[in-house]
């Protein structure tokens, strides 16, 4: 006999369960996770290095877990900020999963950590589908990537709770159309905050840190429409 059975289980259930455990565990000890997504070369590491340095100056205990397919270059760069940093090598995997994050925290993350920044693998497709137990999801796009990036990667932009435009010191040279970019973000993620930033001229300094700290206090973080699925 051949039977049809509706399993009614989400394919990603395993990751979602792991993410929920991680979120509960970390929040209960006062650590908030911030998941950073972007394409390669958007300036994620530079921005994170600046924000970690600021966290140090302000006495906020912040740490970073950085993921790459290969090399420990990002960890070395981030470590210059003085914050605890750990490199995850994904061995070819294009995104992080919740259990990978959980595995790397043991014996490394100081108990007192208030903010844990997770620098996801540079990729706007795959990381979008994986909850890492974060309380804040940020997507970065540099001015050189084109105004239609949010339309090309609607899931990544559509699920972000904050959008940061990087390298704005180059906006004129790149002929970046801010109005068009904002309209495209609004189309896939109505109401999400878009902030402009440049590590070179200091624009937007502290914005990632401020929003992350706000998330630790449970301050109304934006809920994207895509995350408000009815069914």
């Amino acid at each position, binding site marked *: 006999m051949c039977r049809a059975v509706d399993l009614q289980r989400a394919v990603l*259930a395993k990751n979602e369960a792991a993410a929920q455990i991680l979120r509960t565990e970390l929040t209960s000890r006062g650590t908030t996770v911030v998941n950073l997504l972007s394409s390669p070369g958007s300036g994620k590491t530079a921005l994170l290095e600046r924000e970690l340095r600021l966290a140090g100056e302000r006495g906020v205990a912040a740490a970073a877990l950085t993921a790459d397919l290969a090399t420990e270059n990002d960890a070395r760069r981030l470590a210059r900020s003085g914050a605890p940093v750990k490199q995850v090598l994904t061995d070819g995997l*294009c995104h992080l999963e919740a259990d990978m994050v959980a595995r790397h925290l043991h014996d490394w993350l100081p108990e007192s950590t208030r903010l844990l920044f997770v620098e996801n693998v540079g990729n706007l497709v795959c990381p979008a589908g994986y909850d890492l137990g974060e309380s804040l999801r940020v997507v970065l796009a540099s001015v050189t990537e084109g105004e239609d990036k949010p339309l090309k990667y609607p*899931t990544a932009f559509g699920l972000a709770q904050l959008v940061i435009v990087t390298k704005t010191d180059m906006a004129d040279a790149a002929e970046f159309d801010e109005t068009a970019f904002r309209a495209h973000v609004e*189309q896939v993620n109505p109401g999400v905050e878009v902030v402009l930033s440049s590590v070179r001229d200091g624009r937007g300094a502290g914005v990632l840190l401020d929003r992350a700290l706000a998330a630790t206090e449970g301050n109304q973080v934006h809920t994207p429409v895509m995350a408000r699925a009815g069914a």
Partner: protein
Amino acid sequence: MHEMSLAVAVVDQVEAAAKSRGAVGVSSIELDVGELAGVVADALAFCFELACAGTVVEGAELITRTVPGTARCEPCADVWAVGMPPRLLCPGCGAAAGELVSGRELQIREVRWAGPEAAREERRQPITEES
């Protein structure tokens, strides 16, 4: 490519279900994949072939059903097909969609078990346990 992880997740879940019910084979797996789930059906099919090798799922047919994205506007109570890239602003009043009604599904909709008995009765209509 995250389709490999998804394919492995599908195989793992079906294998676990097969074990718990003592099934010895799977004839087909039907998946609901939302337009906005960020999954490429062809890539998933390719990965599935690799992921199911040597498991009870080997040889099963993978059927993917694309679920279109639809959103609802609260003030207008309008429901519209969001398209790709999605338009999450109401075509009627321009307000932000209140919710995404469909389009982010990634679910195993149905599994058809196969085995010695299934082979014997393969011309029969399958019996659906649940709707």
